[in-house]
């Protein structure tokens, strides 16, 4: 018995990607196996740990709980897409390095995507809000304290960048 394949087209990190996959292929496996984007990690495959979190049309989703066919036609952002153009660390990634917000790094991609979306929604979180914002992702290494710090630092970096841009705009 051969599995029927479906053509799936998604925009991943701003680039249109197309591949054929069976209906039961999870979005996480599709990204990793079919598109070769291995930054998205699988920690539990039952939607609890959050390591596989990606953004679908800007909203965090668990890529282990969604079939790839369900993502057809949607825009997906993975951790690879949270870098600045040119491959430099993006604001959330930079904050993680500064605050030592990662150790083994396995859960980190899910935190990066989650926080990226959260800061769009709440650009100036309190410490308590920052802790709440990451409350759906598991990390076994860090004890979260430095991840909370990274959320606050990322917000600060984003504000600094906005101010720089506004300053540059004003000068022009």
């Amino acid at each position, binding site marked *: 018995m051969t599995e029927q394949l479906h053509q799936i087209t998604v925009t991943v990190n701003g680039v249109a990607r197309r591949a054929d996959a069976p209906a039961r292929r999870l979005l996480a496996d599709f990204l990793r196996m079919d598109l070769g984007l291995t930054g998205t990690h699988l920690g539990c*495959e039952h939607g609890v740990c959050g390591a596989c979190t990606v953004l679908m049309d800007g909203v965090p989703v668990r890529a282990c709980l969604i079939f790839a066919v369900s993502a057809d036609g949607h825009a997906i952002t993975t951790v690879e897409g949270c870098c600045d153009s040119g491959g430099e660390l993006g604001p959330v990634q930079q904050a993680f390095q500064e605050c030592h917000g990662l150790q083994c790094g396995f859960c980190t991609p899910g935190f990066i995507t989650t926080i990226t979306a959260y800061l769009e929604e709440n650009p100036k979180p309190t410490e308590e809000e920052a802790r709440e914002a990451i409350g759906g992702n598991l990390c076994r290494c860090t004890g979260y304290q430095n991840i909370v710090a990274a959320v606050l630092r990322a917000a600060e970096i984003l504000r600094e960048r906005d101010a720089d841009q506004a300053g540059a705009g004003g000068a022009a």
Partner: protein
Amino acid sequence: MSDKLVGQPLVRKEDPRLLRGDGRYLDDLGRGALAAAFVRSPVAHARIADIDVTDALDVEGLVAVYTHEDLPGRVAEPLPLLIPHPDLSHPRTPYCLAKDEVNHVGEAVVMVVATDRYLAEDAAERIVVTYEDLPPVVGIDQARAAQRLVHDEVPGNIAARSVQTNGKGDARGAIAAAPHRLSLDLQIERSASMPMEGKGVLAHWDADDRTLRVHTSTQTSTSVRLAVAAKLELPPDRVEVITPDVGGGFGVKIVHPWPEEILVPWAAMTLGRDVKWVEDRREHFISSAHERGQQQHVEAGFDGSGRLLGLSVEIWHDNGAYVPYGIIVPIVTSTQLLGPYKVGAYRVEFTSLYTNTVIVTPYRGAGRPQGVFAMERTMDAIAEYLGLDRLAVREANLIQPEEMPYDQGLVFQDGRPLIYDSGDYPTMLRMIRELVGWDGFEAERAAAAAEGRRIGIGIGAYVEGTGMGPYEGAHVKVETTGEIVVSTGLTTQGQGHYTSLAQIAADVLGVGVGDVTVITGDTRRFKYAVGTFASRAIVTSGNAVAVAAGKVAEKAKRIAAAALGGGTAPEDLELVDGTVRRRDDPAASIDLRTVAVLSNPLRYAFDEAAKAATQFAAAVGTGDEPGLEATGYYMPERSTFAAGAHGVVVETDPETADIRILRYCVVHDCGVVVNPRIVEGQVHGGVAQGVGGALYERIVYDDAGQLVNASYMDFLIPFATEVPHIQTAHMVTASGVNPLGLKGAGEAGVIPTSAAVASAIEDAEGLAVRRMPISPSELYELRKLHETRKSRKEQVSA
């Protein structure tokens, strides 16, 4: 010198790669490899009557199905007993695939190989195994009762029984003769390492070269290499084992070879194709290792100031169905139990018991959390009995700094004497007293009580043997580009070795940390190593890197002295800012990279650097070897002992019995700190696992031996919302046993957490906590029990 890199909180070199999603974890490798999946036992104890694979054969993409009958030679034999011990009288280890009998839910019975994992699981699902059930032994009570046996030929389910005394007289006699006595029965439940990445193996057999390349998510690539070579009967030089990025270990990945580490390479050789297996979360729960589960009985004899005159401890340790890793965990519990205290006569006896459950091997802390729980519960019980302050009782028992090195009179897990090399425990307790606000707490308690709130304060202290041998090594090479490559055999799974080891090498060679690249866990680069476990990596590998880099520095000076001429002697030179220069005349200098060029006299000028080497061929002395590189080893005489104390304030809800941590404080001493940022992170992570172990995490088996909470839904790892903010303070008592003065830091945070939290809950509630973890419903039950007992007592006295 203030510009030393050791001691600086540098950001980690490895982070940008991991943050961009460019990490290379096991499952990121081997795209296109065949996938393995396993049929695992759904029952705890049974004979295998039949295995029928017929239905699986229809699955398109199926490549092979293997049962025990298919395994050849040594692959068919039981897995090795890694750490034999004279007291381990009845060792039993598993087969790669079960032979005739299964002894726990999750034991591998059939291996399926297919073109992808989905199809391999399809086929595995269609295989029908018929089991004839045997009565299972679940839990320590059943194992002790021994009415049923896990292994027919192991009487009493006893794998090992071991007794140690500290050579200071008869403990039971000392207790009997003491002015005061008490006894405690204690219990710690099962937990597990639970790294976010499970295990995984990828194997590639090069039939032309007759070389096997194995990638595995392990804490010891060098030992996996030797184990695979032995099992597959290959010369070790034909086996390469590479540890890619590892998504956490915490102990479970030190066990080796796992059945899959033998079966996957064997299948790759047999099939002539790349084969990969990646563990899923349920597999990790039911077929990797657990830890912690113990029962303890403590007898203590003490004087009026709380000084322990005699201490006798009996431990019943649940080792699961097999003991491939030996009896390290109960040995560590027995010997590290004494912590920072000196006791009169000490006797400890442990019995290590088989049950029909997953194997039990070290999980971060490795038996210490249980030992510290026993000792600290005892300290609190003594204080309660005598009506003394809990810190005062601890202070009365502390080993004093002037007593260092202090011989506890026991044999440690490495077979060497348990001698504390250095430490200042009175200062440590003073620091935690201040940090947690011990002295002002009664006012705080009263203020909370006035609001109808119930709070309590607790403390836990420990000493941790770290940095044990037998050895680690490193190879340091200066490339002609100026890049320094440091290779060490041990692995890394998040501890930041790419940065901290670079700091050590950079200091010795007078370069920046950005000039140093560290390679770990790749047997192609360094074949000799023990592994990353037991808080040993920075101590052993760090010192080895310093030795190797020191040899390179000496060689660089010899070559540079010859090149600079004018009577320059090697001892006139120093390595600074990427150059080798005269101390008395910094202008007389030569770039380290040029020295590297000179170190390798060449006949052929294939590029500019090579051209330079042909001209300066004379620079390497005739007695020297080519290349600016060296190998160095560090072999510790014995372990070095880190220490710490935790203080915690909890609030317990009078209605719901909810337990909330309000304040968590840590005083931590790991000797000289290489990178404070990394050490702080290690402490945070340890405490979070400790909080999990104190309040949330438990592995639950039902009477049939089914693991009923084998998912992240039901096994409650703390999220950010459950882990408190952690306040840390550091002190430094340099190690007396290694040149860099380092002590290990990896496990520290987890060790006294259950003890400290239990102490605080007791204090808040005014009732005895003897079992951890504790949930709100258990606290609620404890309260009811306490009330019943109290009212009974009142009735009797009335």
